[in-house]
């Protein structure tokens, strides 16, 4: 069953990557480089975990478990939006350097998160445990996870998974089939052109960053649920990994879907490397267990080197738009 386990684990780790990478895509397609995804994920996850903790302590009606999870997801998204608007304000209104403002937010988030956690749980109580009932067990759905396919789909299922796929479909529809999507894409490519036909570039960019905040916030809680051990004021670099996924996915939703599965797969292979007998073991090396842990990051770098030449970023991303400039 190890294949099923690996696939199932790949799925739950691919979901946050995809969500956050889609978020990054919306921001960059509107013209704002959002390097703050990591920080936004942390803030979203923090809020959602605190909410789940609170619900669990206060007692709840078991019938509505998944509604509470849904509420937690929405809270994560909303907090993500709020936090992302700091970036939007700095980079759109104040025309600051987007990479620096994003970095600042990334540094702020884990620190803020630890302060909040300690204030609520007591000093040095860094971990916010999330209740085990957030997982949707196969039994509850009346399914037994006994073959590769059902294991893959249902062994560790969270509400975030179907939501993520719904969001993917909505993203494609929004980006390519709606008026706002067309305008948003124009703002990332040629804001002057968009402005000349009456599109409000600033509004579109606030929207793009806002969507990225929403998705990164949800991605934060999706990651935390998948990681399972509770929230530790970190998302282990997944925000940055998502940026790589976005670039590898060439700023296109469907490519991002495949890219996120690709990255998640390597990540999971590293977790399971000990139990996969067919993988070479490097036993004569000191600390050889780390070799497979390095893999996802190494693969990221290699892939980016190989694909960055062909990949095509939105042309105007990273450049603050100044309406008055002649």
């Amino acid at each position, binding site marked *: 069953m190890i294949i099923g386990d690996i696939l199932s684990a790949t799925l739950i780790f691919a979901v946050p990557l995809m969500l956050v990478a889609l978020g990054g895509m919306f921001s960059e397609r509107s013209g704002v480089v959002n390097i703050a995804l990591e920080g936004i994920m942390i803030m979203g996850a923090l809020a959602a975990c605190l909410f789940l903790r609170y619900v669990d302590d206060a007692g709840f009606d078991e019938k509505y478990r998944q509604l509470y999870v849904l509420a937690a997801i929405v809270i994560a998204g909303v907090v993500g939006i709020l936090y992302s608007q700091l970036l939007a304000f700095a980079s759109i209104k104040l025309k600051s350097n987007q990479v620096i403002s994003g970095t600042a937010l990334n540094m702020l988030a884990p620190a803020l998160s630890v302060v909040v956690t300690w204030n609520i749980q007591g000093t040095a109580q860094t971990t916010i445990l999330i209740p085990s009932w957030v997982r949707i067990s196969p039994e509850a759905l009346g399914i037994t996870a006994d073959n590769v396919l059902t294991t893959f789909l249902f062994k560790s299922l969270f509400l975030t998974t179907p939501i993520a796929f719904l969001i993917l479909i909505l993203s494609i529809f929004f980006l390519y*089939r*709606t*008026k706002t999507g*067309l*305008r948003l*894409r*124009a703002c990332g*490519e*040629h804001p*002057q*052109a*968009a*402005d*000349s*036909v*009456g*599109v409000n570039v600033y509004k579109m960019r606030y929207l793009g960053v806002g969507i990225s905040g929403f998705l990164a916030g949800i991605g934060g809680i999706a990651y935390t649920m998948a990681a399972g051990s509770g929230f530790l004021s970190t998302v282990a670099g997944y925000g940055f990994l998502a940026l790589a996924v976005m670039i590898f996915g060439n700023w296109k939703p469907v490519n991002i879907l495949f890219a996120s599965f690709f990255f998640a797969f390597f990540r999971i292979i590293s977790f399971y490397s000990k139990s996969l007998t067919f993988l070479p073991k490097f036993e004569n090396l000191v600390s050889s267990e780390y070799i497979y842990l390095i893999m996802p990051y190494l693969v990221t770098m290699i892939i980016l080197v190989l694909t960055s*030449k*062909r990949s*095509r970023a939105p*042309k105007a991303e990273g450049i603050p738009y100044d309406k008055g400039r*002649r």
Partner: protein
Amino acid sequence: MSEYIIEMNGIRKVFPGVIANDNITLQLKKGEIHALLGENGAGKSTLMGVLFGIYQAEAGEILKDGVPVRIHDPKDANKKGIGMVHQHFKLVEVFSVLDNIMLGAEETKRGVLQKKKAREKALKLSEKYKLQVDLDAVIEDISVGMQQRVEILKMLYRDNDILIFDEPTAVLTPQEIEELMLTMRNFAREGKSILFITHKLNEIKAVADRCTVLRKGKCVGTVDVKDSTVDSLAEMMVGRKVIFKVDKKPADPKDAILRVSNLSLTTEASGKHQLHNVSFNVRRGEIVSIAGIEGNGQSELVYTLTGLMKPTHGTITFGEQDITKCSIRERNDLGIAHIPEDRHRYGLVLDYNLAENMILKSYHTPQFKKYGFLRFPAIQEHAEKLIRFFDIRAGEGPDTPARSMSGGNQQKAIIAREVSLSPDLLIAVQPTRGLDVGAIEYIQKQLIAARDEGRAVLLVSLELEEVMNISDRILVMYEGKIVAEVDAEHAVRQELGLYMAGATPSDFVREVM
């Protein structure tokens, strides 16, 4: 009902440090083609920006059909039926033609874009006005001429009937210009009113009904085109009599100093040929021009000659030496001077003062350097000499920051620096772009003077007029190839235009026969 569809009265617009428009009045009749003439910096684009809602005027009013209106932004202008083809197209390069036409005026049904409807409307318009475009092509793949047709369709798609064309002919071949004029006349016949910004007098004579002339932000007057001549218009524009023909002796070419053979440049990413087997010579004592429409490899050719890019194949020989692999410094020291296309990017360090800019290429020579330190008195003196000799107008003399100088004087400064190096070969790329008539005359004279001193001059220009006026031989580039070589004395405008559009001399002979 007013006689005028648009009236702009007493418009004043100030940018920090400049009065771009000072009490300007412009009246546009319904169904006329109204030219707006003026030199660069006369305030034409600003005035149109005010009409199109890009800028807000500090004083004055705009009347549409006799009723005062306020135009807050381009969207507002669109709603009032005003459309504009900008000098630099406002097209999203990775979008399809149709997406660009729709953008900002999209029709939706329950949130979904109605592309099919948009396509029908765009198709109908393109057929009606014979504006041939491929709606599914991506902008970056289509020609500049077609991009302009897309811009025109954008205006028509929005049902605009007041159409502003901001220097529309600058990027077109002579044949395309003729087509555009035909289209403009069609529009006028249908009752659309056209504002046509230009500084080319013959185009005004060819197509416009009336002409308003601006000079240095002020309105000189409005005239009926049929009652005026090219000379009288030029005089209004410049404020003095203008001599169009450049005086020059016949060339006396000597030995070839620059030999280029089979030069090719391929971009790695797309594998596209930017230069394809380019071969030519330039001799001492002659001006060779490279004519062509922007983006046909002229810039790349100059980059490879000056060392900014390395060619993929081919050799460049200077004098007796193969310089294909030489560094930029080595080429400078051998005697190649370069007046670059983009004077802000490659010509000057804008935040340095004039004196420092004058030694950018020679600071390492003993004249300006001793024991590793710059010799400031010598640098100062050098700058003063050049300012005097080349008549560079700089407020604080050698200490003037380059940024604060006018475009014409910046260009003079570059020419002073390059010519003072006594180069054997002077490569000048669009040396007169964006300059007023006075500065153009001066720079063209300098180029001819350099030739008469026995230097070789390679001129790259998009202005056919300039190419025909001052060069001795003309090479025409199209899609990275040299498609024709013409003796300047026997050059015919129409013939050059055909080459610029990709015809080869053999085609031309066939057509004539």
